């Protein structure tokens, strides 16, 4: 069995992905450093979500999805026979565009992942719940209503709850697919602060349509276009002196 220990950098080599006959990702090579925030940007339909979902193997669920290439997280080949997909997903958390808390109490939401690995001791769960909620800086807002249904929270709170829920599985990588696109500016600000904090321990990859957000939070930025990785580098360089003309046109809003 392959285990995820040590560094948590992400690499993709010769990545090609097809939905049936549709060639969605074309020959992508990338090395994403650990404990940094990497933003994936690009126009709608260019394959950002598709690329992101490779790393927790959520594309496995998509019928007719075919892939080539080599994908490693912390050196581990994530499609290797010896890699347990559920262990991979415990190590590589995902936050979705639309907050998706389970229709149950806040406590049970957070305790879900630990319970799936057989943790049942009350004191242990209590501790994980508190720690995860604190890390997602939402503990103070919800500590008095842990038993309330999570669906009663605001959208911004729900999204931070989902982040806390991922953290409860002790991931080393966090994939975020437009985590703030459904949120107001204040909630967005909170989540951006949170990412700044979390990247001390976690590798974060975030898909965003918001250029300002990318410049605010991302150390590295990758620009995708029509399934290709057009340009990848330090965020500062991408936004101040892009090498590719298409990147420049996109970030200056003069695209298509």
């Amino acid at each position, binding site marked *: 069995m392959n285990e995820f220990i040590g560094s948590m950098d992400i690499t993709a080599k010769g990545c090609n992905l097809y939905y049936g006959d549709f060639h969605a990702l074309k020959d992508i090579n990338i090395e994403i450093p650990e404990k940094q925030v990497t933003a994936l940007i690009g126009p709608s339909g260019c394959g950002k979500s598709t690329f992101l979902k490779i790393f*927790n193997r*959520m594309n496995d*669920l998509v*019928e007719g999805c075919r892939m080539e290439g080599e994908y490693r997280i912390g050196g581990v080949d994530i499609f290797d026979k010896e890699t347990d997909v*559920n*262990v*991979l*997903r*415990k190590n590589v*958390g*995902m936050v*979705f565009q*639309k907050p*998706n808390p*389970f*229709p*149950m*109490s806040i406590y049970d939401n957070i305790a*879900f*992942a630990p*319970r*799936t*690995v057989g943790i049942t001791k009350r004191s242990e769960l209590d501790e994980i719940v508190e720690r995860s909620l604190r890390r997602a800086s939402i503990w103070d807002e919800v500590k008095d*209503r842990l*038993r*309330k*249904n999570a*669906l*009663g929270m605001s959208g911004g709170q729900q999204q931070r709850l*989902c982040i806390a*829920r*991922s953290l409860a*599985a002790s991931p080393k990588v966090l994939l975020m697919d437009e985590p703030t696109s459904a949120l107001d500016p204040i909630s967005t600000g909170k989540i951006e602060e949170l990412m700044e904090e979390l990247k001390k321990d976690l590798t974060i990859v975030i898909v965003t349509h918001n250029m300002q957000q990318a410049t605010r939070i991302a150390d590295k930025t990758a620009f995708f276009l029509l399934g290709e990785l057009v340009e990848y580098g330090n965020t500062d360089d991408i936004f101040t002196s892009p090498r590719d003309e298409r990147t420049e046109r996109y970030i200056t809003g003069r695209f298509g």
Partner: protein
Amino acid sequence: MRVVFLFSAFFSILALATITMFLFVSGVPFIAKTGFAKFLFGSDWIPLADNPSYGIFPMIVASLYVTALSVIIGIGIGLLTAIALYKFCPKKLVAPIRQMINLLAGIPSVIFGLFGMTIVVPFIRDYVSPTGVGYGILSASLVLGIMILPTIVSVSLDSLNSVSNTYYEGALALGATKEQATFKIMLPAAKSGILAGVVLAVGRAVGETMAVIMVIGGSPERPTSLFQSVRTLTANIAMGAMESSGDTLSALIATGVVLFVFTLILNVSFSLLKIDKRDKADGKKEKRGTKK
């Protein structure tokens, strides 16, 4: 034209009112005459004796047993079938299997009865029953369990499908197995819909007559074993209805009143479940949460 519409709408209400009136007008006085307790809790049904006795308690008990056991069988198999069709079988097979299960729903109950008589009862008699009797509660429950399968499968599957798939993906993304995601997240989220389906199935099981008569034996005895000829409320009415008159007929109608009340209770709980489902999003659960 409007009159026609109005009359059509009125027609079912009229039918319901007539049936209710008929049942209560002919049944309730008889219950009163016999004595409420004596009728409901009396243990002897000998309507044709010189000194007749009209106790339907054995049949109430038999009905409850048959219903409970058939629903347990139906839920057991039906829920697992629904779960299998939900995420655990090749997508291509889902539609044809559903179609076949729906066909099962269309088979007339007398054919289920025939099947029970010629296959289930002899099988139970020869291989299962310790007493050598094949008729009885177990045979009836098996046949009924199969009959209510389509209801349970299709309602459960619909309820599961109506739960947002984002929950499922969320659970898998947390490293849960398919089984954990289904049983810990999707099934609880679909609970109230499934429960409504179960109530519907219970209603069908309580009311089913033909198939039950053919496999239950028919003796109006207090059930003490799963392998013993007994009689349900519905069987009681159907078996006596052809040749009865006078007090005996009234006793059958009174049995009908009891049955009617049973199904009424089931219908009301079904509606309540549906309302509960609608309310769930807005706050009911929260109230419960604050108390703790």
